[in-house]
C-alpha cells in the first residue's frame, strides 16, 4: 500500500521512507521541546494571573492576550522574518545566514512555546480558581509566603484538576508543529508534500503522514492518561471507576 516509501530517491541509495522518518523526528523534537518550555512558562504565568500582586497579574494578563490572539503562523513569521531586521545589524545578518534546519527550528520553537504557554496559562488559572478560596486563606493563615502557598498548596491541586484539558494542549502542539513548514523546516507534513512533488503518489505520501499523526495522537493520549493515573490522589478516582469496581466486587462475592 505504501510502496513509495521503499522506493529509492532518484540516483541514490536513500529511500523516500527515510525522508518521512526524518520529518517525523523533527516534528517530535519540536513538539517535545516546545511543550517543556510552554509548560514551564505557562505554569508561572498562570500563577501570576491569580496573584494578589496587582502589577504581576496585569503583566501576565497582557502576556496571555498578546500571545493567544495572534495566529501561530504570524507569530512564526515575526520571529523568523521580522526579528532579524529589528536586531542590531551584525546579530540580524548572522541570524539570517543561520543555515537550516536549526535556523528554522529555533524561531519555530520560540513561537510555538510562547503561543502554547499562553494557552496553558489560561488552563492553570482556571484550575487555581476552581479551588475553594479557603485553601489560599488557610495557607496564608499558616504563615506561608505567597510563593510557598502556590508551590505547596495551590499548584499541586490545580495541576491535577487541569491535567485532562492539558492533554488536548499537548495534542495541539504536535499538530501546530506543521506550521513550521512555512518557514522552511522539513517536518512531517513538509516531507509528505516533498515526496508527493517527486513521485506524484499523493495518496501514499499523505496517507503515511496522516497515519503518523494519528499514531502520535494515540501516544500522547496513552501517555497523558498514564500520568493522570500515576498522579491521582488515592481515593479520589472518578465515580464511574468506583462504581465499576464495586460491581466487580459484588460479582466476585
Amino acid at each position, binding site marked *: 500500500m505504501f510502496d513509495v516509501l521503499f522506493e529509492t530517491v532518484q540516483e541514490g541509495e536513500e529511500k523516500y521512507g527515510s525522508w518521512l522518518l526524518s520529518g517525523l523526528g523533527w516534528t517530535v523534537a519540536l513538539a517535545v521541546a516546545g511543550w517543556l518550555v510552554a509548560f514551564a512558562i505557562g505554569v508561572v504565568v498562570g500563577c501570576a494571573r491569580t496573584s494578589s500582586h496587582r502589577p504581576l497579574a496585569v503583566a501576565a494578563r497582557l502576556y496571555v*492576550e*498578546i500571545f*493567544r*490572539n*495572534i*495566529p*501561530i*503562523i*504570524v*507569530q512564526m*513569521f*515575526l520571529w523568523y*522574518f*521580522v526579528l532579524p*531586521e*529589528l*536586531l*542590531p545589524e551584525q546579530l540580524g545578518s548572522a541570524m539570517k545566514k543561520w543555515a537550516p534546519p536549526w535556523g528554522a527550528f529555533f524561531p519555530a520553537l520560540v513561537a510555538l512555546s510562547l503561543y502554547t504557554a499562553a494557552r496553558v496559562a489560561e488552563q492553570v488559572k482556571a484550575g487555581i480558581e476552581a479551588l475553594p478560596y479557603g485553601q489560599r486563606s488557610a495557607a496564608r493563615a499558616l504563615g506561608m509566603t505567597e510563593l510557598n502557598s502556590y508551590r505547596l498548596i495551590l499548584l499541586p491541586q490545580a495541576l491535577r484538576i487541569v491535567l485532562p484539558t492539558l492533554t488536548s494542549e499537548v*495534542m495541539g502542539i504536535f*499538530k*501546530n*508543529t*506543521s*506550521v513550521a*513548514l*512555512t518557514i522552511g523546516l522539513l517536518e512531517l*507534513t513538509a516531507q*509528505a*508534500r516533498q515526496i*508527493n512533488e517527486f513521485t506524484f503518489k*499523493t495518496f501514499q505520501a*499523505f496517507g503515511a*503522514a*496522516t497515519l503518523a*499523526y*494519528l499514531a502520535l*495522537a494515540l501516544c500522547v493520549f496513552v501517555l497523558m492518561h498514564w500520568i493522570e493515573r500515576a498522579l491521582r490522589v488515592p481515593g479520589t478516582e472518578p465515580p464511574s471507576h468506583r462504581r465499576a469496581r464495586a460491581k466487580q466486587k459484588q460479582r466476585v462475592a
Partner: protein
Amino acid sequence: MMGHFDFSVIAEAWPFLLKGLVFSLELTAVGFVGGLLLGIAIALVRHLEVPIASQILGGYVTLIRSIPLIMVLFWFFFLMPLVLMWATGAPRPVQIGPVWTAFVTFTMFEAAYYAEIIRAGLKSIHKGQYGASTALGMTTWQTYRLVILPQVIRAVSPILLTQTIILFQDTSLVYVLSATDLLGAASKIAQRDSRLVEMYLTVAVVYLALCSLASQVVAVLRQRYAVPARR
C-alpha cells in the same frame, strides 16, 4: 533599527490588505455557518446512535481532530478535483482553485470541532427533558428542535464563540495554498517591495486587535447571558 520603519508603505498597501481581510472574514463566516450546521447534524447522529453512520462519523471526527489543519488543506486540495471528476463524470480532475478548496476545507474541518462541542452539550441535558417531551406527545424531531437544541446551543455558546475566534486565526493557514487572505496579501506585498517588517507587524496588530475585541465581547456575553446554575 525602527528608524526606517515606513508607515507610508502600510497606507499604500492598506486597500489590498483590506481585501485580504474581507476574504479572511468570509472564510470565517462560511466555516462558522457551514461547520455549525454540519456539526449539529454529526452530533445528533452520534447522540441518537444511528447504527453504522454514527461509527463512521465518530471515526471522521477523531481523524480530523488528530491531524494538523495544514494536512487537511493539502488533502482537500488534492482530493476535491478527484471527487468532482467522479461526481460530474468529467474526463479529467476538475480544478477548483485555492479559494473554493479553503471554503470546503474549513466547513468540513470545523464541523468536527463543533460536533464535539455540541455533543458535550447534549450530554449535559437532563434526562427528564426527553421524558417530558415524549409525555407531551412530541416527535423526536420536535423534541430536539424545540426543547433540546435551544438549551444546548445556549449552554455551549461561549465555547462555540471561542472556537470561532480560533477559526478566524486558523484561516491565516490558507497561506500554504497561496490564497490571498489578510496574511497572504501582506506576504505578497512584503516579498514584492521587501517590506517584511512593516507588513507582518501590521498583520499581527490587526489580528491582535480583532481577536482581543472578540474575546472581550464573548466574556461580556458569558456574564450577561449565563444560564443560572441549576441544582
